[in-house]
């Protein structure tokens, strides 16, 4: 008879999806940092990264005015001559979705993502979380970033966790879903891989798994990004279902973003090097990307104040 403890449940899940060696992962990702991206490939990478940004503001003090200026930045990140592409999406709290929609209009390629499901903790009844998702979609959200029930996962209640994700999928309707694992609360790479599989089995092709909320001590790292990319790869090769990926939080510099893209290139390949399959959840990253693009064009670094550097002000 199978043991029923949470530990036994986790162990069976690890046996099924395979384990991860932390030292090995960290060694692998250290190699991405040694890739030297120069000249045309750098410009291409920077533009690609800019097109993948989910430009984010998630603060208690967010106002319609701030969301409007964020949207403006998303539509036109810099002087058009520099050729910086529009970002993939803006990411706001559900209460701000209608303001974002007003600022962006209906006829735009920039999508509106909203963190629903009692972000960041998720610790409210499921009924409330689903109502929040539906409200955000009704207000015009194209994408929903949900948090998983980490408590259920750590207690070994995988069914509960998956059923909740499936319920959110239903509530999303046509909206794309991003499932936030909140990797810092799962702690181990083994857990991150296992949770990735649990999520991928109930979401739709083109939906995302996402590292973190940005609200805890540790967010996206090359290591947890790698574990999730490998889970996506293994799932794709086994089922043909392509799941997208979004690291979020902690990616502030262009150099970091390029290193993450090297990981995508060498793990998942060309089919994931676009903003339908890969995103960066970030606020200040875009400014550094623009600054580096300017530097590639002029050969000199501009002062930070040319790029409205602070994440606070767009």
């Amino acid at each position: 008879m199978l043991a029923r403890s949470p530990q036994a449940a986790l162990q069976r899940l690890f046996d099924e999806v395979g384990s991860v060696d932390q030292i090995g992962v960290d060694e692998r990702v250290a190699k991405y940092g040694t890739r030297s991206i120069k000249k045309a490939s750098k410009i291409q990478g920077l533009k690609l990264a800019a097109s993948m940004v989910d430009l984010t503001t998630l603060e208690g003090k967010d106002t319609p005015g701030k969301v409007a200026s964020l949207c403006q930045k998303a539509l036109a990140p810099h002087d058009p001559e520099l050729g910086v592409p529009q970002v993939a999406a803006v990411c706001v709290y559900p209460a701000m979705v209608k303001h974002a929609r007003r600022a962006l209009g209906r006829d735009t390629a920039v999508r509106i993502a909203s963190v629903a499901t009692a972000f960041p903790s998720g610790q409210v009844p499921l009924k409330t979380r689903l109502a929040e998702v539906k409200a955000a979609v009704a207000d015009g959200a194209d994408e929903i970033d949900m948090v998983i029930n980490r408590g259920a996962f750590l207690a070994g209640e995988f069914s509960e966790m998956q059923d909740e994700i499936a319920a959110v999928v239903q509530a999303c309707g046509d909206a794309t879903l991003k499932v936030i694992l909140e990797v810092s609360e799962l702690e181990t790479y083994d857990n991150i891989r296992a949770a990735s599989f649990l999520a991928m089995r109930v979401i739709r092709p083109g939906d995302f798994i996402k590292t973190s909320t940005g609200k805890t001590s540790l967010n996206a790292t090359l290591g947890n990004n790698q574990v999730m990319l490998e889970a996506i790869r293994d799932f794709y090769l086994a089922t043909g279902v392509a799941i997208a990926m979004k690291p979020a939080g902690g990616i502030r510099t262009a150099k970091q973003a390029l290193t993450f893209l090297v990981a995508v290139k060498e793990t998942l390949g060309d089919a994931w090097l676009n903003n339908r399959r890969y995103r960066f959840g970030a606020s200040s990253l875009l400014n550094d990307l623009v600054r580096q693009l300017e530097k590639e064009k002029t050969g000199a670094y501009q002062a930070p104040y040319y790029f409205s550097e602070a994440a606070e002000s767009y």
Partner: protein
Amino acid sequence: MPTLTASKKSNRSAVRAGRPAPELILGDLWEFDPAPESADPKLKARYELFIDGKFVAPKGGRYFDSINPANEQKLAEIALAGPADVDAAYAAAQRAYDGVWGKLPGRERAKYLYRIARLLQDRAREFAVAETLDGGKPIKESRDFDVPMAAAHFFYHAGWADKLDYVAPGRKVAPLGVVGQVIPWNFPLLMCAWKLAPALAMGNTVVLKPAETTSITALKLAEIFQDAGLPPGVVNFVTGAGEVGAAVMNHPTPAKIAFTGSTEVGKIIMRGLAGTDKKMTMELGGKAANIVFDDAPIDQAVEGIVNGIFFNQGHVCCAGSRLLVQESVAAKVLAKLKNRIRTLRVGDPMDKNTDIGAINSREQLDKITRLVAAGVKEGGEMFQPACKLPAKGFYFRPTIFSGVSMSSRVAREEIFGPVLSILTFRTVDEAIEKANNTAYGLSAGVWTDKGSRILKMSTELKAGVVWANTYNKFDPTSPFGGYKESGFGREGGRQGLLDYCKLV
């Protein structure tokens, strides 16, 4: 009750019959531009012998070319030593031992070694570029591994030099005298450091012959010895091919011979020294088993397999050239391995993004080509990625053979190139039996989640080094050496030092 999740398939469109299996597009949608390392290697047009603290012309007046294997262009001329030059080198070493080095207190010897290590660090980029030009290894390896590790060996042994009273508890140690050393071409500078640092720390003096295709960094190291004020004759370099090596090995002066190279040459040397009272250490060939169990973290194991066999183009005596993989995961490992190999970048060693550089010499390339042809003929299933190779220079695609049997040549002979042979096993005992079924015994790798199995394997495997859930990890504190035809004696750590002294 927690359920296994196999039932949760509502939205999962399983791969439908008749459709092609999903594949990754590991292509060039975002291709990297060339990123050549630009530091100046500061090469001389001509390198002389280094004898008695000075660069001297060979008495025979002959020189040979050292070429860059990446483009077959000449880099420099290297002096060809004759018997008289070897005599002069040994005479200088004996003088230095009798007059200075053998009497110098350990703490004074340490100062020189620390100085050498620091000077090497100061000139790290220059040495890395020179190493890559001369040997063909990727710049990222010479930059991140060879040069820092060489400096680390000098630092580590400098630390021992004033603590030798404690290296053999209850005993005192004394230097042997003059030591003759011959090193291979795969890690020219690093092997130099491995050989020199313990010998010098212990108070010996040295005559060393670098490999004929890769003499330059040793002779650049000689410049550092001059800058460090190392007393003349403590280290002497004689350059040339096999006959110079034979003269160094068979000379009457040295009290000890240390050799790193092929088993074939090692046997010849041992025959020559039979009946003499010379001490010997031999670090010879290998055909290491890298063993992957079904509970291993597969992606990290694949990374370790790649690191084990393609590091330095496979020119590594402890390369994991035989992959033993448990049958139940063999297909999975092979599929992941192929995808990983598709992303390896083969080409110009000076490019910072190159993973696999140039084969060291035409001769070695021919040997690899010959053995791979034999592998195909014997029925192994060969896989090579479709990467472009430069038009000039010596290059070989990373190659794996699956479905190899124990009797196959590619499973038995040391290829010393980027060629992996894959065999399968069913049980732990079978893995041990197959791993030990070889004339060699230098190293092995074990990949498993089970700690107790690692301990069992490490006692049962007849190999000098057993890596667990990693591969090709080196440290000056860790002894390295072989079993059986992989040689005897250890290098590194306390054990390595003991091979350069006598107990009194």
